[in-house]
């Protein structure tokens, strides 16, 4: 049965059932249900989620249907007041688990991975249910912050669309059958040394999995392990090899960097250590008391990114021109020789000034090359950093963190060749989604089917599992044990917080099936590996990082390509248990970062393209991972889909981003569908006119256009992978764009009709410099008195990068509903905090300002006095409390809110039906129903938890004890919350800053949330 998806023969199933009604009886319903046909029929007849979500329906329409359905269930919900509530019992534990007090969350250290690289997190568990992700303050990549992906990963865990059981060509199989089949196939392979066995993974940094793969390699010497990561740092690896003659891993320390040049690197908001970089960067930008100066950032990039929005000088260049820029800058800094002027003056206009700034800050400067830039740019950046004396100060090199560093593209091409030659009998695909995201010229969808037996482990039944006979459900990281390395090599441990919801297993457990070892649970695999490493008992083991107290920091060794065993320092075996407990508790192995090294730049290898790329009347096409759904892996994560993307504020979609001038040339505006032709392949994509985008190029964000992505992912956007060829992964010239007659309605909370000019400028003035604050006497109402606490917030706009992690954190913390694309289009997104973007100046290269906007919690709140039923009230601590069950939904409060931070449940937006999503809810926050207003509460549940705790200990709440969800996740510590009655609290100090201002202060609302105005540090040479 080579047909990937077996059509369910409903009639046949019925007929078969019908026949059974003769003499043959079934003993029980279970008996009958055990038949796959019957199960399938049941699934078809009674889908878990009623109408509207099935694949054959238009997803947009489907969502509407879904809403209709929710509406129908509402008709009953309205009646619920008249019906008797079902009896529910609260049952105490017979034996209460240790440390578990019902109602008090526990936190466990674990780690998310992106591109295989770990980011340490703390997962909040309520009675055994992980509900929220926070950063792990002890983890070097997190420093307590968390990104949007991490925040949203908890929704992925409970995603009802996840693959739930193992299957063979659409039929349900048990894991025992999987194991039997695998072992049988392996037996066949054993005879030919595994020559027909291939394993395709994403990037793997996990030492345990590396060890497993090594053992599989030992058992099947001819086996090949391929890796493919569509948005991996391919050229960074190649660039390092070009510069140093050896693969190295690069990371930065921005703490002391005074002049930073980003060559198309969005280091503040994407990449493996962006949280750390953002923290360091913003610390270097904070002008307060003791620190009078700030760092300076130059950004050259084609498409505005959060990093670009923080730039003191931002230069939009086409992706291919950045190489020229890097070459010229390198020459000016004193590395090599390249042209200092060319046809395009834009490229060179700031070179001298930037170079002088860099040279003035030797050892405190930094050049960062973007992961999407070609290897030569990376090599030039390495050379510049070396010349500027930054190595060891702001730039650090270590051995690669990957278990095996390979040229992934070559690796994938190699697999394709083997597939073509029919050499692949058995292909194991661990994670990833190569059918969807491999370069289009490789034609992986068709070629994969040349492999004899295809086994796929994945979270979802996606495009890849569609073409694999075996699809195995993967355990989510919150359900499984694991390990991975962080950006600097720190070994990070993953521990499960919950039993797998479905029959998922981790990649580690699946790999174990391929070894000659007995089947083991993930815990045992991990522990056994680390115990063998710690005990030093294993011979020929994979190089291990030195860990624990026994090893001196910085002495660990790791060789880049699964080379000979390193001299792993050993520790006394007896220590293992305490070491293990310590490491699992902390979520990382102490001192396991790879030691810094100083490879020498081999300048002769660096070859930059010095010729100016000519477009020849065509356009440059630029591919980038999507800011919220990345390479497509988060496409079914509704939180990330609905998260307005930084800068563009687009949701549920990608677009062909182009500059106003290019749009004018093509005669299009936002929403007009373009026909993109590139190398003979075409794609229909709606245009999006993006101020600050470079002229002559179109940026396409990868990850959209999923066909089997799940309910949230299917049918959203278009698929740029359809244009992406293996020899131009990130950008290329030669794109033709033609206007079609069609238009597309984007879902965005950014309105694109704001007239440029006068109004915007006056508004900007008010927003950013404050206005005349009216005297207190102008209000009729008496002053509020605050005896105890008076909560307040200050947001440092100089620090905020607009990364939008706070928006998802808030969504997770406060049970905020997802409304879907259609409702976002109708302006009904529910986020309690939003990040506003403002442009200032030249439309082709505007200054971009980010402004996170939670509820202002006004002292004289306009919302409070217009609510006819007193559903929104001033609390004794200064909050505007929203009483959901009192709200009748007049929406007057929202009309009267000048900041428009109130959100209304136009329908029953909260999902009260899906069982798995019920586990997701934060039990401390009410799940809102239809017809009520909601808004930011300053995380009042956290305030109250801290107050209860402090009252128990007979003390006041300490400053910093309460962290709102947005504050806790903020990588730049831009958001500060605390007690305004305490003059020594951080928030009071921030509000005492000169740059502190209240938004729309002239309205006399006296907001509790105030802003520290955004400061920039322009280079006087350029600005002057």
């Amino acid at each position, binding site marked *: 049965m080579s047909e990937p998806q077996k059509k369910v023969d409903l009639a046949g199933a019925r007929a078969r059932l019908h026949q059974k009604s003769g003499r043959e009886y079934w003993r029980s319903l279970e008996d009958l249900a055990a038949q796959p046909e019957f199960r399938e029929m049941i699934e078809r007849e009674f889908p878990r989620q009623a109408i509207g979500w099935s694949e054959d329906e238009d997803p947009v329409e489907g969502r509407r249907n879904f809403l209709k359905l*929710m509406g129908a269930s509402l008709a009953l919900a309205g009646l619920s007041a008249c019906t008797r509530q079902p009896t529910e019992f609260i049952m105490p534990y017979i034996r209460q688990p240790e440390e578990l007090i019902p109602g008090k969350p526990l936190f466990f250290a674990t780690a998310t991975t992106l591109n295989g690289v770990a980011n340490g997190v703390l997962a909040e568990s309520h009675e055994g249910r992980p509900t929220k992700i926070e950063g792990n303050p002890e983890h070097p990549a997190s420093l307590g912050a968390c990104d949007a992906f991490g925040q949203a990963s908890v929704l992925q865990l409970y995603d009802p669309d996840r693959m739930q059981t193992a299957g063979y060509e659409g039929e349900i199989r048990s894991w025992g059958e999987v194991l039997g089949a695998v072992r049988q196939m392996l037996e066949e392979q054993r005879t030919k040394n595994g020559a027909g066995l291939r394993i395709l993974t994403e990037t793997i940094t996990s030492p345990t999995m590396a060890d497993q793969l090594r053992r599989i390699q030992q058992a099947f010497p001819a086996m090949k392990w391929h890796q493919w990561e569509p948005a991996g740092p391919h050229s960074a690896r190649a660039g390092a090899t070009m510069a140093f003659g050896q693969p190295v891993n690069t990371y930065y320390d921005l703490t002391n960097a005074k002049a930073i040049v980003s060559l198309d690197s969005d280091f503040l908001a994407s990449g493996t250590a962006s949280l750390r970089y953002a923290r360091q960067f913003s610390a270097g930008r904070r002008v307060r008391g003791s620190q009078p100066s700030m760092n300076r950032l130059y950004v050259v990039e084609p498409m505005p990114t959060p990093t670009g929005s923080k730039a003191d000088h931002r230069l939009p260049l086409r992706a291919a021109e950045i190489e020229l820029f890097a070459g010229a800058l390198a020459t000016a800094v004193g590395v090599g020789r390249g042209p200092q002027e060319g046809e395009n003056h834009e490229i060179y206009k700031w070179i001298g000034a930037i170079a002088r700034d860099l040279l003035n800050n030797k050892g405190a400067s930094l050049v960062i090359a973007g992961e999407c830039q070609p290897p030569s740019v990376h090599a030039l950046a390495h050379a510049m950093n070396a010349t500027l004396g930054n190595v060891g100060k702001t730039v650090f090199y270590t051995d690669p963190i990957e278990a095996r560093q390979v040229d992934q593209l070559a690796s994938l091409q190699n697999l394709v060749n083997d597939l073509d030659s029919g050499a692949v009998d058995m292909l194991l695909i661990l994670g990833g989604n190569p059918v969807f995201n491999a370069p289009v010229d490789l034609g992986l969808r068709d070629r994969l089917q040349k492999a004899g037996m295809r086994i796929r482990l994945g979270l979802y039944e996606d495009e890849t599992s569609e073409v694999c006979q075996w699809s195995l459900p993967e355990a989510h990281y919150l359900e499984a044990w694991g390990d991975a390395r962080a950006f600097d090599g720190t070994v990070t441990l993953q521990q499960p917080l919950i039993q797998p919801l479905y029959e998922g297993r981790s990649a580690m457990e699946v790999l174990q099936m391929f070894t000659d070892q007995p089947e083991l649970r993930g815990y045992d695999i991990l522990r056994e590996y680390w115990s063998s490493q710690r005990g030093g008992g294993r011979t020929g083991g994979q190089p291990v990082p030195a860990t624990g107290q026994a090893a001196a920091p910085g002495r660990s060794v790791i060789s880049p390509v699964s080379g000979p065993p390193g001299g792993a320092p050993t520790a006394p075996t007896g220590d293992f248990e305490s070491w293990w407990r310590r490491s699992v508790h902390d979520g990382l192995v102490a001192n396991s970062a790879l030691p810094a090294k100083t490879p020498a730049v081999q300048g002769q290898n660096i070859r930059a393209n010095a010729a100016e790329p000519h477009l020849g009347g065509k356009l440059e096409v630029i591919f980038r991972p999507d800011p919220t759904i990345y390479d497509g892996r988060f496409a079914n994560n509704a939180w990330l889909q609905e998260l307005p993307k930084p800068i563009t504020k687009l949701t549920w979609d990608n677009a062909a981003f182009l500059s106003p001038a290019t749009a004018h040339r093509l005669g299009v505006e936002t929403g007009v569908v373009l026909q993109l032709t590139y190398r003979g392949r075409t794609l229909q994509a709606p245009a999006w006119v993006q101020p600050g985008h470079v002229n002559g190029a179109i940026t396409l964000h990868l990850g959209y256009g999923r066909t089997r992505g799940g309910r949230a992912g299917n049918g959203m956007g278009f698929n740029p992978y359809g244009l992406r060829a293996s020899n131009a992964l990130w950008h290329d010239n030669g794109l033709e764009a033609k206007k079609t007659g069609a238009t597309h309605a984007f879902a965005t909370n950014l309105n694109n009709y704001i007239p440029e000019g006068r109004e915007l400028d006056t508004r900007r003035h008010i927003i950013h410099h404050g206005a005349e604050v009216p005297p207190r006497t102008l209000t009729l109402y008496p002053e509020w008195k605050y005896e105890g606490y008076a909560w307040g917030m200050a947001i440092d706009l100089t620090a905020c990068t607009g990364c939008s992690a706070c928006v998802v954190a808030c969504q997770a913390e406060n049970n905020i509903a997802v409304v879907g694309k259609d409702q976002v289009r109708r302006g009904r997104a529910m986020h309690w905090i939003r990040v506003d973007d403002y442009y200032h100046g030249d439309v082709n290269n505007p200054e971009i300002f980010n402004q996170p906007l939670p509820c202002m919690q006004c002292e004289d709140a*306009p919302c409070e006095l217009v609510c006819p039923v007193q559903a929104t009230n001033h609390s004794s601590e200064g909050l505007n409390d929203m009483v959901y069950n009192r709200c009748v*939904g007049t929406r007057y409060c929202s009309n009267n809110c000048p*900041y428009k931070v109130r959100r209304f449940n136009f329908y029953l937006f909260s999902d009260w039906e899906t069982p798995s999503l019920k586990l997701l809810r934060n039990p401390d926050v009410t799940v809102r129903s239809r017809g009520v207003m909601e808004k930011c509460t300053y995380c009042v549940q956290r305030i109250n938890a801290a107050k209860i705790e402090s009252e128990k200990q007979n003390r006041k709440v300490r400053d910093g004890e309460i962290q709102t969800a947005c504050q806790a996740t903020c990588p730049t510590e831009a958001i500060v919350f605390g007690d305004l009655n305490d003059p020594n609290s951080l928030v009071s100090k921030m509000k005492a800053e000169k740059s502190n201002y209240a938004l729309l202060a002239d309205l006399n609302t006296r907001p509790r949330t105030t802003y520290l105005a955004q400061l920039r540090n322009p280079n006087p040479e350029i600005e002057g």
Partner: protein
Amino acid sequence: MPDNPNVVEQERLQDVIAPGYTFGTVTDQIAAVVLTRRTPLFWMACFGLGVALLLLFLWSVALILAKGVGVWGIRTPVMWGFAITNFVWWIGIGHAGTLISAILLLLNQKWRNSINRFAEAMTLFAVACAGMFPLLHLGRPWLFYWLFPYPNAMGVQPQFRSPLVWDVFAVSTYGTVSLLFWYVGLMPDLATLRDRARNPIVRYLYGVMAMGWRGSARHWSVHETASLLLAGLATPLVLSVHTVVSFDFTIAIVPGWHSTFFPPYFVAGAIYSGFAMVLALAIPLRAVYGLQGLITDRHLENSGKLMLATGEIVAYAYFMETFTAWYSGDVFEQAAFWHRMFGPYAITYWALITCNIILPQALWFKKIRSNPVTLFLISIIVLVGMWLERYVIIVTSLAQDFLTSSWDMFHATRWDWATYIGTIGLFMFLFFLFIRLLPMISIFEVRTLLPQAKVAGEKS
């Protein structure tokens, strides 16, 4: 002249009732519409349309109750859309009825006698339609009673600082007084119908409604006092209801709303639209039922003059509103008006100016004012214009307020239209039911217009 009022009366009465009428013919003609005449096709058509639209209304209401107000086009910055626009529009329409029945009664304007009954009915039904919207636009309409101060176990009372609570009082008072006034005025005529009805069931029903009216002098005396008292009560309501409705906007800090100027402006606008509605109803009715003798050209012209006068006040208001926005120096206020005039909703604004200011200037010409056809057309235009006025005030002000980031456009959905047109259906349904079942012109009051009534000479 003032010491001989009869002379004046005589002259004016020539205009407000055609010569040749007697007590009997007046009664005959009005009562016949209800009791004996065949129901005209016009009625059938209008009532049928009303029922059809009422069904549409009920359908939308069911949908709103079942799904939520999300079926409308309201969205984050524009949280009030058609619902509140319609509410203000309907309430405004009701005003003419109260003005005619109460204020003109107190001012002793006799010509009102032949139009006050259906104008009052119009008020009542308009208030009924208006009342639908604040109720339906709630997120949780079944909890509407929380807006009333009633003793409750929760110990929570409404927020008396909120104009919406004032609205509740204003509109419910208005509705109650209008109903009482209308019903008290109906009683003598119900008795007349009772006396004239042949069918015993009909007679019985009218009898019940007439509440035992026998036309005794004592009845008349009490009736007169009650009418005057109710008129006295209703008079301040003409001013207060729309003043309070305008507070919904003026109390808010939204640019384009926050103005002390709104109360008189709203009251004038209300009367403007109310008279337009009176004309839009009276002109076809008198043609169909041949009531030109009772609702004379003089009535139409007087209403036209009132429309013109209130229209000028409204025009002045538009001008002043714009002027103060500019003069205030407040950037937001200025921007709000700039957007109104030249922003994305400019078409509605200029349509409103055309309908409410430019075209009604034709009423200066007596020829147009006294021609029922042109008058009818202008009254329809004014009704549209006044609806647009509320739409412009509500939607454009909300769509673009302070922070550009939250600006967004309101687009009406078909359910917005369905609920709006549905209430027009409700209005037509009620109104034509009224036409069919109750005397649309006050019999006893018209009789006082007859010369015969003046024989005694003492009255007035």
